C-alpha cells in the first residue's frame, strides 16, 4: 500500500541523501518525494510517498526519527489531509489544433502557461487522479504529449494540527527571525557531507 509521511528536517546539506538512503536500505521504493522550505527558516519540509507493506508505517517512521537531522515525522495516511500535486504538460499543437486542448484545460481547471507555434504548455494542480485524468484525455484525443513534469504529492493535515515537536523546541518562528538565505558566511555552521555551501557538490 501507499504510505505518506511528512518529515520536518534540518535545512542542511546531505539531509536528503540520508532520508533517501534510509528507504534504499529498507528496500522500499519512493513513489514521490518533494522538498521545500517550511514556515521555519531552518526547517525543510518533505512529503514522502512510498510503496510498502501495510504494517511498515511504524518502522519507517521510527527509522526516520533515528536520523539526527530529522526533527519530526508524521504518518499522515490515517488523517484527513489536503493532497496536491502540480504538473506541467507540454503538448504538440499548432494554431489550428489548439482549440480542443483549450476546452479540455478549462474542464480540468488547467492553465495555459506557454504558447508556441508548435506546442503549448498546461499547468494543472490537484490530486494525482485529476492530473492523470487530464493526461489520459489528452492522449485519447490523439494529442502528442512532448513532456510531463510532475512535482509529486504535497500533503498537509486539515484542521489546527501543527508539529508538537517544533512547538516544544521553540524554534524561532518567521515572525521572530526573518528567513535568511544561507550564504558562505551564513548561520548554518553545522555542515554535513559536503560542508562548504559554495562548493559545487
Amino acid at each position, binding site marked *: 500500500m501507499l504510505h505518506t509521511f511528512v518529515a520536518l528536517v534540518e535545512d542542511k546539506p546531505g539531509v536528503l541523501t540520508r532520508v533517501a538512503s534510509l528507504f534504499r536500505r529498507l528496500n522500499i521504493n519512493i513513489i514521490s518525494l518533494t522538498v521545500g522550505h517550511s514556515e521555519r527558516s531552518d526547517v525543510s519540509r518533505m512529503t514522502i510517498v512510498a510503496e510498502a507493506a501495510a504494517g511498515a508505517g511504524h518502522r519507517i517512521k521510527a527509522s526516520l526519527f533515528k536520523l539526527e537531522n530529522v526533527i519530526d515525522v508524521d504518518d499522515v495516511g490515517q488523517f484527513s489531509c489536503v493532497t496536491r500535486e502540480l504538473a506541467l504538460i507540454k503538448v504538440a499543437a499548432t494554431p489550428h489544433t489548439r482549440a480542443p486542448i483549450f476546452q479540455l484545460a478549462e474542464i480540468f481547471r488547467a492553465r495555459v502557461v506557454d504558447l508556441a507555434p508548435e506546442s503549448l504548455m498546461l499547468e494543472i494542480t490537484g490530486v494525482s487522479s485529476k492530473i492523470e485524468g487530464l493526461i489520459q484525455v489528452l492522449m485519447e484525443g490523439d494529442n502528442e504529449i512532448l513532456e510531463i513534469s510532475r512535482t509529486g504529492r504535497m500533503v498537509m493535515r486539515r484542521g489546527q494540527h501543527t508539529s508538537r515537536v517544533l512547538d516544544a523546541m521553540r524554534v524561532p518562528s518567521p515572525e521572530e527571525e526573518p528567513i535568511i538565505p544561507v550564504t558562505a558566511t551564513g548561520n548554518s*555552521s553545522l555542515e554535513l557531507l559536503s560542508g562548504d555551501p559554495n562548493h*559545487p557538490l
Partner: protein
Amino acid sequence: MSEQPASTTSQPTRLTGAEIVWATLEGEGVREVFGYPGGAILPIYDALRKYPIRHILVRHEQGAAHMADGYARASGKVGVAVATSGPGATNLVTGIATAMMDSVPLVCITGQISSKLLGTDAFQEVDITGITLPITKHNYVITRTQDIARVLREAFLIASSGRPGPVLVDITKDAQQGLADFDFAAAAPTPHRPHPMLSAEHDAISEAIKLILSAKRPIILAGHGVLDSNAMNQLRTLAERLQIPVASTLLGIGAFPASHELSLGMMGMHGEAWVNQAIQQSDLLIACGMRFDDRVTGVLTSYAPNAKKIHIEIDPAEINKNVKADIALIGDLREILETLLPQIAPRKDSTWIRAVNTLKGDAAVRDIKNLPDLGHLYAAHVIHDLWRATDGKAIVVTDVGQHQMWEAQYYKHDAPRTLITSGGLGTMGFALPAAIGAKIACPNKEVWVIAGDGGFQMTAAELSTLVQEHLDINIAVINNGFLGMVRQWQEFMYERNYACSPILSPDFVKLAGAHGIPGATVRSRADVLPAVETARKSGGPFLINFMVEKEDAVYPMIAPGSALDEMIRRPSNGHDPLIETSEEP
C-alpha cells in the same frame, strides 16, 4: 565525560583547529585514543604533544576502530579512533560497522584533504561520510575551524546518548590548520530534540504490571541494553522479587550474574537446550534492551507461541520489527524498571522456577562429560578450565566463530562488561585489537583473548601494538585447522563439502616469539591448567596455542529455519546428531 578538567576555562583562547581537536577531546574526558597518522591528519598529530592524551599507534586502522570499540565496551565510555583520509578512513569501515551493529559509542576522527580540493579526486581523497552513512549513527564533514569544537562535542553526545553508536567526524586539512577561538563550555551541544516516540505511557506501564503479576511462566530476556542503561541492579531486583528466570542474549551476558540461581544462560541458536525450551513454554517474555535478533528467535512463526511479550527498548524502530510486542515500553530501561519496581510486590510461588530447573538438568556438564575420550583436547575443556583458573573474573575478548559460542556457553560471567565480543556483525579479527582497547580501559583487570586460528590471523599484526604499549594480555588461540563454524555448517548443511574451510596457520608460538611474546602449545587436557597458570604468572603477554579436536561442533544448534526448540544435540559416542524437541519425553 561530564567532568571538565580545570584547564578548560570559559575564556576563549585562540587555537589552531588541530589544537581544538585535542582540547575538545581533553574536555570530554578522553585520556586515550587509537590511531594511525597520515598526510591529511598530520596537523592534528603535530599538536598532540601539547595535550595529556595517550595515543596508541595501531598497525592497521581497522585495529584502531576495534580498539576504541573494546575500550568503550569495557569502560562504558566513548572510544576514540583517529585515521587519515583515503585508505586510512576506509580501513576503519569494518570496525565502525561492528560498533554500529552492537550499539557501541565511538567517535572516529578522520583527516580529509583541504576543502578547496574536495571532489577533485585529490591524493588520498575518499568520500568517507558517504561511505559510512549507513553504518554510523551520524557523521559530519567540518570545513571550518570554528565548527570543530561544537561538532566534536555534539558527536560525543550523539555517540553516547539514547541507543549508542559510532559517529564519524571528517575534518579537512585547512580546518585543522586554521585559527579560531576555543571555548569548551560555549561549544556545549544544544539539548537533544524531543523524541515524540519515546514514551512509557502510564497506561502501558500499568498494563505491563498487570501482565507481569498474572504471568505463570514469565522469563526475562536480558540484552545489551541492560549494560548500556546500567540497569543491572534493577533487573536483578525484578527477577528476585518475582522469581523470574533470566535468559541472556550474547551481548547481554554479564548483565545478570551467570552463577545466580535464576540465571538460565544464553538463549538462541547455540543457547542451552533448557533456555530455549523454557522460552517456548513461557507465557510472558519481558524483553529488556534486546532486539529479537534472528540468532535469538529461530524461525519467527513458532517463536514463544504461548507468550505475551513486553518489549522494553530505547529504540522505537526495534518495536514490532521481528516479534510483535503486546506492550511496548519505549525509553531508558533503568528508568522504566525503576517506575515498575515500586508497584510490584514480592511473590513466593516457585512452581515455574522449579519446572525450569527440571528442564535445566545438567546438560552443559553432561555434554562435556560425554565428549568421546580419544585423548584429544576439546575447546570446551579449554574454556571451562580458563574459567576455573581465572575464577570467572577475567575480561574475555573473543573473536567470532565456534570458540565464541563455546566461550558464551562455558565461561560463566558474573560481572557486567567482562565478555567483549562482536555479536551483530560477527567480525572475525575483532578479538586481539578489542582486547588491547579493553586493557587500556581497565589496566588492572586480567584480560584474555580467545580467538580461532582463522580470525586471529586477520589482525595478528596488532601483536606488535600490544608489545609497543607494554600490555599484559594473554592470548588463547583455539586452533583446529579449520574455519570451524564454516566447517560446522558445511558438515550439517552442505554434506561435509569442506570447501575452503581448512586453513593453514603459522606456528603461533613462533609468531608470538617473533614479537618477543613467550608462548606454549598445548595438546592435552592435563596441560591446559598449568599452561594457563604459566601465562597468568608470566607478568606480561603470553600466547597459548591450543591444538583442539579438528571436527568438533558447537551444540546445541538450531539450524536456520528451525523452531527455537528444534535443536541438533551433541551426539552420544558413535551416533548421529539427534534432534531433540520439547515434545519428547
